[in-house]
Protein backbone atom coordinates (compact mmCIF):
# COMPACT_ATOMS: atom_id res chain seq x y z
CA UNK A 1 0.00 0.00 0.00
CA UNK A 2 2.67 2.41 1.00
CA UNK A 3 4.65 1.44 -2.03
CA UNK A 4 1.72 2.21 -4.30
CA UNK A 5 1.22 5.57 -2.66
CA UNK A 6 4.86 6.29 -3.20
CA UNK A 7 4.75 5.27 -6.85
CA UNK A 8 1.73 7.46 -7.37
CA UNK A 9 3.49 10.31 -5.72
CA UNK A 10 6.50 9.89 -7.95
CA UNK A 11 4.23 9.66 -10.94
CA UNK A 12 2.49 12.86 -9.91
CA UNK A 13 5.77 14.63 -9.34
CA UNK A 14 7.03 13.56 -12.73
CA UNK A 15 3.92 14.85 -14.44
CA UNK A 16 4.34 18.10 -12.57
CA UNK A 17 7.97 18.40 -13.61
CA UNK A 18 7.09 17.75 -17.24
CA UNK A 19 4.38 20.41 -17.10
CA UNK A 20 6.73 22.85 -15.43
CA UNK A 21 9.44 22.30 -17.99
CA UNK A 22 6.89 22.62 -20.76
CA UNK A 23 5.53 25.86 -19.40
CA UNK A 24 8.95 27.34 -18.76
CA UNK A 25 10.27 26.45 -22.16
CA UNK A 26 7.52 28.20 -24.10
CA UNK A 27 9.65 31.33 -24.60
CA UNK A 28 12.25 29.26 -26.39
CA UNK A 29 9.69 28.28 -28.98
CA UNK A 30 7.83 31.48 -29.48
CA UNK A 31 8.39 35.06 -28.54
CA UNK A 32 5.26 36.36 -30.16
CA UNK A 33 4.10 39.08 -27.77
CA UNK A 34 0.51 38.25 -28.57
CA UNK A 35 0.74 34.59 -27.60
CA UNK A 36 2.67 35.45 -24.48
CA UNK A 37 0.01 38.05 -23.66
CA UNK A 38 -2.68 35.37 -23.77
CA UNK A 39 -0.60 33.01 -21.67
CA UNK A 40 0.15 35.67 -19.08
CA UNK A 41 -3.55 36.41 -18.68
CA UNK A 42 -4.23 32.68 -18.48
CA UNK A 43 -1.76 32.41 -15.64
CA UNK A 44 -3.17 35.37 -13.75
CA UNK A 45 -6.76 34.13 -14.06
CA UNK A 46 -5.59 30.71 -13.01
CA UNK A 47 -4.22 32.09 -9.77
CA UNK A 48 -7.47 33.93 -9.15
CA UNK A 49 -9.45 30.80 -9.96
CA UNK A 50 -7.41 28.80 -7.45
CA UNK A 51 -8.46 31.31 -4.83
CA UNK A 52 -12.08 30.57 -5.62
CA UNK A 53 -11.30 26.88 -5.85
CA UNK A 54 -9.95 26.83 -2.33
CA UNK A 55 -13.15 28.26 -0.89
CA UNK A 56 -15.67 26.53 -3.09
CA UNK A 57 -13.96 23.31 -3.99
CA UNK A 58 -12.31 22.46 -0.70
CA UNK A 59 -14.30 24.16 2.03
CA UNK A 60 -17.52 24.10 0.09
CA UNK A 61 -18.43 27.76 0.54
CA UNK A 62 -19.26 29.85 -2.49
CA UNK A 63 -17.50 33.14 -2.00
CA UNK A 64 -18.26 35.82 -4.55
CA UNK A 65 -15.78 38.12 -2.86
CA UNK A 66 -12.69 36.67 -4.53
CA UNK A 67 -12.66 39.32 -7.22
CA UNK A 68 -13.01 41.92 -4.49
CA UNK A 69 -9.75 40.67 -2.97
CA UNK A 70 -8.29 40.59 -6.46
CA UNK A 71 -9.11 44.26 -6.81
CA UNK A 72 -7.89 45.12 -3.31
CA UNK A 73 -4.60 43.36 -3.97
CA UNK A 74 -4.26 45.15 -7.29
CA UNK A 75 -4.91 48.57 -5.77
CA UNK A 76 -2.65 47.94 -2.78
CA UNK A 77 0.24 46.97 -4.96
CA UNK A 78 -0.43 49.80 -7.40
CA UNK A 79 -0.74 52.56 -4.84
CA UNK A 80 2.42 51.43 -3.11
CA UNK A 81 4.29 51.42 -6.39
CA UNK A 82 2.93 54.64 -7.85
CA UNK A 83 2.25 56.89 -4.88
CA UNK A 84 4.86 55.60 -2.46
CA UNK A 85 7.47 54.41 -4.96
CA UNK A 86 7.84 51.03 -3.34
CA UNK A 87 9.22 48.10 -5.26
CA UNK A 88 6.94 45.50 -6.75
CA UNK A 89 8.01 42.95 -4.15
CA UNK A 90 6.98 45.13 -1.23
CA UNK A 91 3.70 45.73 -3.01
CA UNK A 92 3.30 42.02 -3.56
CA UNK A 93 3.81 41.15 0.08
CA UNK A 94 1.24 43.73 1.11
CA UNK A 95 -1.08 42.59 -1.68
CA UNK A 96 -1.07 39.27 0.14
CA UNK A 97 -1.32 40.60 3.66
CA UNK A 98 -3.94 43.30 3.31
CA UNK A 99 -6.62 41.23 1.55
CA UNK A 100 -5.96 38.41 4.02
CA UNK A 101 -6.44 40.69 6.97
CA UNK A 102 -9.59 42.21 5.48
CA UNK A 103 -10.88 38.72 4.76
CA UNK A 104 -10.27 37.72 8.35
CA UNK A 105 -12.06 40.82 9.55
CA UNK A 106 -15.18 40.38 7.42
CA UNK A 107 -14.97 36.64 7.81
CA UNK A 108 -15.78 36.85 11.48
CA UNK A 109 -19.38 37.90 10.94
CA UNK A 110 -19.85 36.42 7.47
CA UNK A 111 -18.72 32.90 8.25
CA UNK A 112 -21.14 32.61 11.12
CA UNK A 113 -24.05 33.04 8.75
CA UNK A 114 -25.96 30.37 6.95
CA UNK A 115 -24.57 29.43 3.58
CA UNK A 116 -27.27 31.42 1.82
CA UNK A 117 -26.47 34.58 3.67
CA UNK A 118 -22.74 34.01 3.27
CA UNK A 119 -23.04 34.01 -0.50
CA UNK A 120 -25.09 37.17 -0.50
CA UNK A 121 -22.90 38.93 1.98
CA UNK A 122 -19.80 38.20 -0.10
CA UNK A 123 -21.62 39.67 -3.06
CA UNK A 124 -22.51 42.72 -1.01
CA UNK A 125 -18.88 42.99 0.06
CA UNK A 126 -17.75 42.95 -3.56
CA UNK A 127 -20.15 45.73 -4.42
CA UNK A 128 -19.14 47.84 -1.44
CA UNK A 129 -15.47 47.50 -2.37
CA UNK A 130 -16.32 48.55 -5.89
CA UNK A 131 -18.25 51.53 -4.60
CA UNK A 132 -15.50 52.58 -2.22
CA UNK A 133 -12.77 52.34 -4.84
CA UNK A 134 -14.88 54.33 -7.28
CA UNK A 135 -15.54 57.10 -4.80
CA UNK A 136 -12.38 57.35 -2.69
CA UNK A 137 -10.90 59.54 -5.37
CA UNK A 138 -8.09 60.97 -3.23
CA UNK A 139 -6.47 57.57 -2.94
CA UNK A 140 -7.59 55.57 -5.95
CA UNK A 141 -8.34 58.37 -8.44
CA UNK A 142 -11.73 56.77 -8.85
CA UNK A 143 -12.88 56.01 -12.38
CA UNK A 144 -9.88 57.90 -13.79
CA UNK A 145 -7.77 54.96 -12.84
CA UNK A 146 -4.07 54.87 -12.13
CA UNK A 147 -1.83 54.80 -15.18
CA UNK A 148 1.90 54.25 -15.43
CA UNK A 149 2.30 51.35 -13.01
CA UNK A 150 5.99 50.38 -13.13
CA UNK A 151 7.03 46.87 -14.04
CA UNK A 152 8.67 44.65 -11.44
CA UNK A 153 12.40 44.89 -11.06
CA UNK A 154 14.79 42.59 -9.28
CA UNK A 155 18.28 43.60 -8.27
CA UNK A 156 20.34 41.64 -5.81
CA UNK A 157 23.63 43.02 -4.51
CA UNK A 158 24.39 44.57 -7.90
CA UNK A 159 24.84 41.04 -9.25
CA UNK A 160 21.41 40.59 -10.74
CA UNK A 161 19.51 43.27 -12.53
CA UNK A 162 16.28 42.09 -14.04
CA UNK A 163 13.47 44.16 -15.36
CA UNK A 164 10.24 42.29 -15.92
CA UNK A 165 8.93 44.77 -18.41
CA UNK A 166 9.39 42.51 -21.40
CA UNK A 167 6.66 40.09 -22.31
CA UNK A 168 8.95 37.08 -22.00
CA UNK A 169 10.19 38.02 -18.57
CA UNK A 170 6.71 38.74 -17.29
CA UNK A 171 5.50 35.42 -18.60
CA UNK A 172 8.25 33.64 -16.69
CA UNK A 173 7.36 35.61 -13.58
CA UNK A 174 3.73 34.58 -13.80
CA UNK A 175 4.56 30.95 -14.55
CA UNK A 176 6.89 30.76 -11.58
CA UNK A 177 4.10 32.08 -9.37
CA UNK A 178 1.64 29.60 -10.85
CA UNK A 179 3.97 26.67 -10.30
CA UNK A 180 4.95 27.69 -6.78
CA UNK A 181 1.30 28.18 -5.92
CA UNK A 182 0.57 24.74 -7.30
CA UNK A 183 3.13 23.17 -5.00
CA UNK A 184 1.94 25.11 -1.96
CA UNK A 185 -1.72 24.37 -2.60
CA UNK A 186 -1.07 20.69 -3.13
CA UNK A 187 0.78 20.59 0.17
CA UNK A 188 -2.03 22.47 1.85
CA UNK A 189 -4.89 20.29 0.70
CA UNK A 190 -3.07 17.11 1.56
CA UNK A 191 -2.19 18.34 5.00
CA UNK A 192 -4.26 18.05 8.14
CA UNK A 193 -5.60 21.52 7.46
CA UNK A 194 -6.71 20.46 4.02
CA UNK A 195 -8.44 17.43 5.41
CA UNK A 196 -10.27 19.66 7.86
CA UNK A 197 -11.42 21.79 4.93
CA UNK A 198 -12.79 18.77 3.15
CA UNK A 199 -14.48 17.56 6.31
CA UNK A 200 -16.26 20.89 6.59
CA UNK A 201 -17.29 20.68 2.97
CA UNK A 202 -18.73 17.22 3.33
CA UNK A 203 -20.66 17.77 6.52
CA UNK A 204 -20.00 20.74 8.72
CA UNK A 205 -22.16 19.56 11.60
CA UNK A 206 -20.36 16.25 11.69
CA UNK A 207 -16.99 17.95 11.52
CA UNK A 208 -17.91 20.05 14.50
CA UNK A 209 -19.13 17.00 16.35
CA UNK A 210 -15.79 15.31 15.79
CA UNK A 211 -14.10 18.26 17.42
CA UNK A 212 -12.89 20.31 14.47
CA UNK A 213 -13.05 24.03 15.11
CA UNK A 214 -14.86 24.77 11.87
CA UNK A 215 -14.85 28.53 12.41
CA UNK A 216 -11.06 28.60 12.68
CA UNK A 217 -10.58 26.57 9.51
CA UNK A 218 -13.14 28.53 7.55
CA UNK A 219 -11.41 31.76 8.52
CA UNK A 220 -8.07 30.28 7.55
CA UNK A 221 -9.36 29.24 4.14
CA UNK A 222 -11.00 32.60 3.57
CA UNK A 223 -7.84 34.51 4.47
CA UNK A 224 -5.53 32.31 2.45
CA UNK A 225 -7.80 32.47 -0.57
CA UNK A 226 -7.92 36.26 -0.23
CA UNK A 227 -4.13 36.38 -0.18
CA UNK A 228 -3.96 34.27 -3.31
CA UNK A 229 -6.43 36.55 -5.04
CA UNK A 230 -4.30 39.49 -3.95
CA UNK A 231 -1.27 38.00 -5.67
CA UNK A 232 -3.24 37.66 -8.88
CA UNK A 233 -4.33 41.27 -8.53
CA UNK A 234 -0.82 42.53 -8.08
CA UNK A 235 0.43 40.61 -11.10
CA UNK A 236 -2.50 41.88 -13.13
CA UNK A 237 -1.95 45.53 -12.28
CA UNK A 238 1.76 45.52 -12.96
CA UNK A 239 1.18 43.80 -16.25
CA UNK A 240 -1.53 46.02 -17.72
CA UNK A 241 0.30 49.05 -16.17
CA UNK A 242 -3.08 50.69 -15.77
CA UNK A 243 -5.63 50.02 -13.07
CA UNK A 244 -9.19 51.23 -12.70
CA UNK A 245 -12.34 50.10 -10.90
CA UNK A 246 -13.33 47.81 -13.77
CA UNK A 247 -11.27 45.11 -12.03
CA UNK A 248 -14.29 44.68 -9.78
CA UNK A 249 -16.63 44.05 -12.70
CA UNK A 250 -18.70 40.89 -12.82
CA UNK A 251 -16.87 39.75 -15.92
CA UNK A 252 -13.89 38.61 -13.85
CA UNK A 253 -16.16 36.77 -11.45
CA UNK A 254 -18.05 35.04 -14.22
CA UNK A 255 -14.79 34.09 -15.85
CA UNK A 256 -13.35 32.35 -12.80
CA UNK A 257 -16.65 30.69 -11.98
CA UNK A 258 -16.64 29.02 -15.36
CA UNK A 259 -12.94 28.20 -15.15
CA UNK A 260 -13.20 26.66 -11.70
CA UNK A 261 -16.43 24.76 -12.18
CA UNK A 262 -15.83 23.38 -15.62
CA UNK A 263 -12.18 22.71 -14.94
CA UNK A 264 -13.10 20.95 -11.74
CA UNK A 265 -13.52 22.48 -8.30
CA UNK A 266 -11.97 20.41 -5.61
CA UNK A 267 -8.91 19.53 -7.62
CA UNK A 268 -5.72 21.50 -8.05
CA UNK A 269 -5.31 20.63 -11.68
CA UNK A 270 -8.90 21.35 -12.61
CA UNK A 271 -8.73 25.15 -12.69
CA UNK A 272 -5.47 24.82 -14.56
CA UNK A 273 -7.27 23.01 -17.33
CA UNK A 274 -10.19 25.40 -17.09
CA UNK A 275 -8.09 28.53 -17.36
CA UNK A 276 -6.28 27.21 -20.41
CA UNK A 277 -9.52 26.36 -22.14
CA UNK A 278 -11.32 29.54 -21.24
CA UNK A 279 -8.57 32.02 -21.94
CA UNK A 280 -7.24 30.51 -25.13
CA UNK A 281 -10.55 29.46 -26.62
CA UNK A 282 -12.10 32.94 -26.77
CA UNK A 283 -9.04 34.28 -28.55
CA UNK A 284 -9.35 31.59 -31.15
CA UNK A 285 -13.00 32.32 -31.70
CA UNK A 286 -13.04 36.07 -32.05
CA UNK A 287 -16.76 36.43 -31.49
CA UNK A 288 -18.61 39.20 -29.76
CA UNK A 289 -18.04 39.36 -26.02
CA UNK A 290 -21.75 39.01 -25.32
CA UNK A 291 -22.02 35.88 -27.37
CA UNK A 292 -19.02 34.43 -25.60
CA UNK A 293 -20.61 35.10 -22.23
CA UNK A 294 -23.85 33.49 -23.34
CA UNK A 295 -21.89 30.40 -24.26
CA UNK A 296 -20.06 30.56 -20.93
CA UNK A 297 -23.38 30.79 -19.14
CA UNK A 298 -24.71 27.82 -21.03
CA UNK A 299 -21.56 25.80 -20.33
CA UNK A 300 -21.74 26.77 -16.66
CA UNK A 301 -25.37 25.74 -16.46
CA UNK A 302 -24.78 22.41 -18.16
CA UNK A 303 -21.80 21.75 -15.95
CA UNK A 304 -23.77 22.46 -12.81
CA UNK A 305 -26.62 20.27 -13.97
CA UNK A 306 -24.74 17.37 -15.46
CA UNK A 307 -21.14 17.44 -14.36
CA UNK A 308 -20.87 19.42 -11.15
CA UNK A 309 -17.46 18.07 -10.30
CA UNK A 310 -16.04 19.43 -13.50
CA UNK A 311 -13.59 17.82 -15.84
CA UNK A 312 -10.94 17.61 -13.16
CA UNK A 313 -13.35 16.03 -10.74
CA UNK A 314 -14.47 13.50 -13.28
CA UNK A 315 -10.89 12.60 -13.97
CA UNK A 316 -10.17 12.22 -10.28
CA UNK A 317 -13.18 9.92 -9.88
CA UNK A 318 -12.00 7.90 -12.83
CA UNK A 319 -8.55 7.47 -11.29
CA UNK A 320 -10.08 6.57 -7.98
CA UNK A 321 -12.32 3.94 -9.53
CA UNK A 322 -9.43 2.50 -11.44
CA UNK A 323 -7.42 2.20 -8.28
CA UNK A 324 -10.24 0.45 -6.48
CA UNK A 325 -10.53 -1.99 -9.33
CA UNK A 326 -6.82 -2.68 -9.11
CA UNK A 327 -7.06 -3.28 -5.41
CA UNK A 328 -9.92 -5.72 -5.85
CA UNK A 329 -8.20 -7.44 -8.74
CA UNK A 330 -5.44 -8.43 -6.38
Amino acid at each position, binding site marked *: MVDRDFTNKIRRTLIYIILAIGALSVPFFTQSPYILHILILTGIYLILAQSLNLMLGYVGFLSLAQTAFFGIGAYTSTILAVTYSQSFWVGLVLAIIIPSVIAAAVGIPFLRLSRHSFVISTLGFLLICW*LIVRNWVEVTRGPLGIPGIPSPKLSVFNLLDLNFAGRVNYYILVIVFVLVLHILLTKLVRSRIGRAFIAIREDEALAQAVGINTMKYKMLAFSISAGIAGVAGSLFAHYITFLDPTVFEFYNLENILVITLVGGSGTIGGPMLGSIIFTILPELLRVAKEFRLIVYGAIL*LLTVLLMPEGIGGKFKTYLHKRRIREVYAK
Partner: protein
Amino acid sequence: MSAETIFTQHLVNGLLLSGIYGLVAAGLTLIYGVLEIVNFAHGEFYMLGAYFTFIASAWLDLPYYISVALAVALSTFIALIVERGAIRPIVERSFESKVLSTFAISMILANTALLLFTATPRTVKTGLAGTIEIAGVFFSVERVLALLTGYLAFLALHLFLQKTRIGKAIRAVAQNRDACYVVGIDLNKMARITFGLGIGLAGLAGALIAPIFSIEPSMGQAIVLKAFAIVIVGGFGSVKGAALAALIIGLGESLVGGYVSATLKDGLAFLIIILVLILRPQGIFGRATRVL
Protein backbone atom coordinates in the same frame (compact mmCIF):
# COMPACT_ATOMS: atom_id res chain seq x y z
CA MET B 1 -40.01 75.74 -2.19
CA SER B 2 -40.32 75.15 1.52
CA ALA B 3 -38.40 72.49 3.38
CA GLU B 4 -41.55 70.46 4.04
CA THR B 5 -42.48 70.40 0.36
CA ILE B 6 -39.03 69.21 -0.62
CA PHE B 7 -39.24 66.52 2.00
CA THR B 8 -42.66 65.44 0.79
CA GLN B 9 -41.38 65.36 -2.76
CA HIS B 10 -38.54 63.07 -1.77
CA LEU B 11 -41.01 60.94 0.13
CA VAL B 12 -43.27 60.59 -2.87
CA ASN B 13 -40.33 59.66 -5.09
CA GLY B 14 -39.35 57.10 -2.50
CA LEU B 15 -42.82 55.58 -2.45
CA LEU B 16 -42.64 54.76 -6.12
CA LEU B 17 -39.24 53.13 -5.70
CA SER B 18 -40.59 51.17 -2.76
CA GLY B 19 -43.47 49.83 -4.81
CA ILE B 20 -41.22 48.59 -7.57
CA TYR B 21 -38.55 47.22 -5.27
CA GLY B 22 -41.25 45.56 -3.21
CA LEU B 23 -42.68 43.66 -6.14
CA VAL B 24 -39.29 42.36 -7.13
CA ALA B 25 -38.33 41.49 -3.57
CA ALA B 26 -41.64 39.76 -2.87
CA GLY B 27 -41.03 37.44 -5.78
CA LEU B 28 -37.50 36.77 -4.66
CA THR B 29 -38.47 35.98 -1.11
CA LEU B 30 -41.34 33.71 -2.15
CA ILE B 31 -39.04 31.72 -4.39
CA TYR B 32 -36.59 31.36 -1.57
CA GLY B 33 -39.26 30.35 0.86
CA VAL B 34 -40.64 27.56 -1.26
CA LEU B 35 -37.71 26.38 -3.34
CA GLU B 36 -34.87 27.36 -1.01
CA ILE B 37 -33.08 28.98 -3.90
CA VAL B 38 -31.58 32.45 -3.94
CA ASN B 39 -32.52 33.37 -7.48
CA PHE B 40 -29.60 35.32 -8.88
CA ALA B 41 -31.41 35.55 -12.20
CA HIS B 42 -34.32 37.43 -10.65
CA GLY B 43 -33.12 40.79 -11.86
CA GLU B 44 -32.90 39.49 -15.40
CA PHE B 45 -36.60 38.60 -15.39
CA TYR B 46 -37.34 42.13 -14.25
CA MET B 47 -35.26 43.26 -17.20
CA LEU B 48 -37.10 40.88 -19.53
CA GLY B 49 -40.42 42.29 -18.38
CA ALA B 50 -39.24 45.73 -19.35
CA TYR B 51 -37.90 44.61 -22.73
CA PHE B 52 -41.03 42.61 -23.59
CA THR B 53 -43.04 45.74 -22.87
CA PHE B 54 -40.72 47.67 -25.14
CA ILE B 55 -41.09 45.12 -27.95
CA ALA B 56 -44.85 45.06 -27.61
CA SER B 57 -45.35 48.80 -27.47
CA ALA B 58 -42.54 50.15 -29.66
CA TRP B 59 -42.20 47.40 -32.26
CA LEU B 60 -45.70 45.92 -32.31
CA ASP B 61 -47.44 49.22 -31.57
CA LEU B 62 -49.68 47.80 -28.88
CA PRO B 63 -51.17 50.09 -26.24
CA TYR B 64 -49.25 50.28 -23.02
CA TYR B 65 -51.43 48.28 -20.67
CA ILE B 66 -51.76 45.44 -23.13
CA SER B 67 -48.00 45.47 -23.52
CA VAL B 68 -47.64 45.15 -19.78
CA ALA B 69 -49.99 42.18 -19.64
CA LEU B 70 -48.20 40.54 -22.52
CA ALA B 71 -44.83 41.15 -20.92
CA VAL B 72 -45.91 39.56 -17.66
CA ALA B 73 -47.33 36.57 -19.50
CA LEU B 74 -44.15 36.07 -21.52
CA SER B 75 -41.88 36.42 -18.49
CA THR B 76 -43.91 33.84 -16.63
CA PHE B 77 -43.79 31.52 -19.60
CA ILE B 78 -40.01 31.73 -19.75
CA ALA B 79 -39.93 31.23 -16.00
CA LEU B 80 -41.75 27.94 -16.35
CA ILE B 81 -39.30 26.74 -18.97
CA VAL B 82 -36.36 27.72 -16.79
CA GLU B 83 -37.92 26.02 -13.81
CA ARG B 84 -38.43 22.79 -15.68
CA GLY B 85 -35.02 22.71 -17.29
CA ALA B 86 -32.62 24.27 -14.85
CA ILE B 87 -34.17 24.35 -11.40
CA ARG B 88 -36.27 21.19 -11.00
CA PRO B 89 -33.33 18.82 -11.66
CA ILE B 90 -31.27 20.31 -8.88
CA VAL B 91 -33.84 21.28 -6.29
CA GLU B 92 -32.51 18.69 -3.88
CA ARG B 93 -28.83 19.38 -4.49
CA SER B 94 -26.46 21.56 -2.56
CA PHE B 95 -27.21 25.22 -2.09
CA GLU B 96 -24.13 26.27 -4.02
CA SER B 97 -25.26 24.28 -7.06
CA LYS B 98 -28.57 26.05 -7.09
CA VAL B 99 -26.95 29.45 -6.75
CA LEU B 100 -24.55 28.73 -9.57
CA SER B 101 -27.38 27.49 -11.73
CA THR B 102 -29.32 30.73 -11.34
CA PHE B 103 -26.09 32.69 -11.78
CA ALA B 104 -25.53 30.92 -15.08
CA ILE B 105 -29.07 31.69 -16.18
CA SER B 106 -28.56 35.33 -15.32
CA MET B 107 -25.40 35.36 -17.45
CA ILE B 108 -27.28 33.86 -20.37
CA LEU B 109 -30.27 36.17 -20.12
CA ALA B 110 -28.32 39.37 -19.54
CA ASN B 111 -25.94 38.77 -22.41
CA THR B 112 -28.67 37.62 -24.78
CA ALA B 113 -30.45 40.89 -24.13
CA LEU B 114 -27.19 42.75 -24.66
CA LEU B 115 -26.63 40.95 -27.93
CA LEU B 116 -30.17 41.44 -29.21
CA PHE B 117 -30.83 44.97 -28.04
CA THR B 118 -27.31 46.42 -27.56
CA ALA B 119 -26.54 48.62 -24.62
CA THR B 120 -28.31 51.64 -26.05
CA PRO B 121 -31.02 52.63 -23.61
CA ARG B 122 -34.56 52.25 -24.88
CA THR B 123 -37.66 54.13 -23.90
CA VAL B 124 -41.30 53.13 -23.71
CA LYS B 125 -44.09 55.60 -24.19
CA THR B 126 -47.34 55.29 -22.34
CA GLY B 127 -49.20 58.05 -24.09
CA LEU B 128 -50.06 59.45 -20.69
CA ALA B 129 -48.83 62.96 -20.24
CA GLY B 130 -49.23 65.46 -17.53
CA THR B 131 -48.32 66.22 -13.99
CA ILE B 132 -50.54 66.58 -10.96
CA GLU B 133 -49.62 69.25 -8.49
CA ILE B 134 -50.82 69.17 -4.93
CA ALA B 135 -49.61 71.86 -2.56
CA GLY B 136 -46.36 72.40 -4.38
CA VAL B 137 -45.57 68.73 -4.62
CA PHE B 138 -45.46 67.33 -8.13
CA PHE B 139 -46.59 63.88 -9.21
CA SER B 140 -46.27 62.78 -12.80
CA VAL B 141 -49.31 60.87 -13.96
CA GLU B 142 -47.13 58.05 -15.22
CA ARG B 143 -45.49 57.54 -11.87
CA VAL B 144 -48.75 57.70 -9.98
CA LEU B 145 -50.26 55.03 -12.19
CA ALA B 146 -47.20 52.82 -11.85
CA LEU B 147 -47.29 53.28 -8.13
CA LEU B 148 -50.99 52.42 -7.89
CA THR B 149 -50.69 49.38 -10.12
CA GLY B 150 -47.72 48.18 -8.14
CA TYR B 151 -49.45 48.48 -4.81
CA LEU B 152 -52.58 46.90 -6.22
CA ALA B 153 -50.54 43.93 -7.38
CA PHE B 154 -49.10 43.67 -3.91
CA LEU B 155 -52.55 43.68 -2.42
CA ALA B 156 -53.64 40.98 -4.85
CA LEU B 157 -50.63 38.92 -3.85
CA HIS B 158 -51.47 39.30 -0.19
CA LEU B 159 -55.06 38.20 -0.73
CA PHE B 160 -53.92 35.29 -2.86
CA LEU B 161 -51.58 34.05 -0.19
CA GLN B 162 -54.05 34.53 2.63
CA LYS B 163 -57.34 33.51 1.17
CA THR B 164 -56.90 30.99 -1.63
CA ARG B 165 -56.16 27.31 -1.15
CA ILE B 166 -53.07 27.35 -3.32
CA GLY B 167 -51.84 30.45 -1.59
CA LYS B 168 -52.17 28.80 1.77
CA ALA B 169 -50.42 25.72 0.47
CA ILE B 170 -47.53 27.88 -0.66
CA ARG B 171 -47.25 29.47 2.75
CA ALA B 172 -47.31 26.03 4.29
CA VAL B 173 -44.42 24.85 2.17
CA ALA B 174 -42.44 27.95 3.07
CA GLN B 175 -43.01 27.28 6.73
CA ASN B 176 -42.25 23.61 6.89
CA ARG B 177 -41.32 21.65 3.82
CA ASP B 178 -41.27 18.23 5.35
CA ALA B 179 -44.64 18.53 7.01
CA CYS B 180 -46.13 19.22 3.61
CA TYR B 181 -45.01 15.84 2.36
CA VAL B 182 -47.00 14.29 5.16
CA VAL B 183 -50.09 16.33 4.47
CA GLY B 184 -49.96 15.45 0.78
CA ILE B 185 -49.22 18.78 -0.85
CA ASP B 186 -47.71 18.32 -4.29
CA LEU B 187 -44.38 20.06 -3.78
CA ASN B 188 -43.39 20.04 -7.43
CA LYS B 189 -46.60 21.75 -8.39
CA MET B 190 -46.19 24.32 -5.62
CA ALA B 191 -42.61 24.96 -6.72
CA ARG B 192 -43.70 25.55 -10.28
CA ILE B 193 -46.52 27.87 -9.29
CA THR B 194 -44.39 29.84 -6.89
CA PHE B 195 -41.54 30.25 -9.33
CA GLY B 196 -43.93 31.42 -12.01
CA LEU B 197 -45.62 33.77 -9.57
CA GLY B 198 -42.37 35.22 -8.29
CA ILE B 199 -41.03 35.81 -11.76
CA GLY B 200 -44.34 37.23 -12.89
CA LEU B 201 -44.10 39.84 -10.16
CA ALA B 202 -40.59 40.75 -11.24
CA GLY B 203 -41.70 40.98 -14.84
CA LEU B 204 -44.59 43.22 -13.83
CA ALA B 205 -42.24 45.51 -11.92
CA GLY B 206 -40.04 45.78 -14.99
CA ALA B 207 -43.00 46.50 -17.22
CA LEU B 208 -44.22 49.22 -14.87
CA ILE B 209 -40.86 50.93 -14.55
CA ALA B 210 -40.13 50.77 -18.28
CA PRO B 211 -41.73 54.09 -19.25
CA ILE B 212 -40.38 55.93 -16.21
CA PHE B 213 -36.70 55.24 -16.63
CA SER B 214 -34.92 54.03 -19.71
CA ILE B 215 -34.37 50.32 -20.28
CA GLU B 216 -30.99 48.69 -20.70
CA PRO B 217 -29.68 45.16 -20.30
CA SER B 218 -27.81 45.94 -17.09
CA MET B 219 -30.91 47.10 -15.21
CA GLY B 220 -31.39 43.59 -13.84
CA GLN B 221 -28.09 43.60 -12.04
CA ALA B 222 -28.77 47.00 -10.59
CA ILE B 223 -32.05 46.03 -9.01
CA VAL B 224 -31.25 42.54 -7.84
CA LEU B 225 -28.93 43.85 -5.17
CA LYS B 226 -31.61 46.17 -3.84
CA ALA B 227 -33.96 43.21 -3.85
CA PHE B 228 -31.44 41.15 -1.89
CA ALA B 229 -31.10 43.93 0.65
CA ILE B 230 -34.85 44.01 1.09
CA VAL B 231 -35.14 40.27 1.40
CA ILE B 232 -32.38 40.16 3.97
CA VAL B 233 -33.80 43.00 6.02
CA GLY B 234 -37.32 41.65 5.82
CA GLY B 235 -36.25 38.11 6.40
CA PHE B 236 -35.85 35.33 3.89
CA GLY B 237 -39.23 33.89 3.04
CA SER B 238 -41.39 36.61 4.52
CA VAL B 239 -43.53 38.62 2.12
CA LYS B 240 -44.69 40.92 4.89
CA GLY B 241 -41.07 41.58 5.77
CA ALA B 242 -40.28 42.30 2.15
CA ALA B 243 -43.07 44.86 1.99
CA LEU B 244 -41.89 46.67 5.10
CA ALA B 245 -38.24 46.54 4.14
CA ALA B 246 -39.04 47.81 0.66
CA LEU B 247 -40.63 50.87 2.18
CA ILE B 248 -37.63 51.48 4.39
CA ILE B 249 -35.07 51.07 1.64
CA GLY B 250 -37.03 52.86 -1.07
CA LEU B 251 -37.67 55.86 1.12
CA GLY B 252 -34.17 55.72 2.55
CA GLU B 253 -32.62 55.85 -0.88
CA SER B 254 -34.70 58.80 -1.92
CA LEU B 255 -33.80 60.73 1.21
CA VAL B 256 -30.11 59.88 1.06
CA GLY B 257 -30.05 60.83 -2.60
CA GLY B 258 -31.71 64.13 -1.90
CA TYR B 259 -30.01 65.20 1.29
CA VAL B 260 -26.64 63.50 1.32
CA SER B 261 -25.21 62.44 -2.01
CA ALA B 262 -26.59 60.89 -5.14
CA THR B 263 -23.62 58.55 -5.62
CA LEU B 264 -23.93 57.10 -2.18
CA LYS B 265 -27.61 56.28 -2.41
CA ASP B 266 -26.86 53.01 -4.15
CA GLY B 267 -24.35 52.19 -1.47
CA LEU B 268 -27.15 52.35 1.06
CA ALA B 269 -28.57 49.02 -0.06
CA PHE B 270 -25.19 47.30 0.06
CA LEU B 271 -24.38 48.75 3.43
CA ILE B 272 -27.71 47.62 4.80
CA ILE B 273 -27.02 44.10 3.56
CA ILE B 274 -23.79 43.96 5.49
CA LEU B 275 -25.09 45.63 8.62
CA VAL B 276 -28.18 43.47 8.89
CA LEU B 277 -26.21 40.32 8.26
CA ILE B 278 -23.85 41.23 11.05
CA LEU B 279 -26.34 42.46 13.60
CA ARG B 280 -29.57 40.59 12.92
CA PRO B 281 -29.03 37.95 10.26
CA GLN B 282 -32.58 36.69 10.25
CA GLY B 283 -34.01 40.08 9.38
CA ILE B 284 -37.16 41.49 10.87
CA PHE B 285 -39.55 38.64 10.27
CA GLY B 286 -37.28 35.85 9.16
CA ARG B 287 -36.96 32.39 10.55
CA ALA B 288 -34.11 31.80 12.95
CA THR B 289 -30.96 31.41 10.96
CA ARG B 290 -29.43 28.04 10.75
CA VAL B 291 -25.79 28.68 11.38
CA LEU B 292 -24.79 25.71 9.32
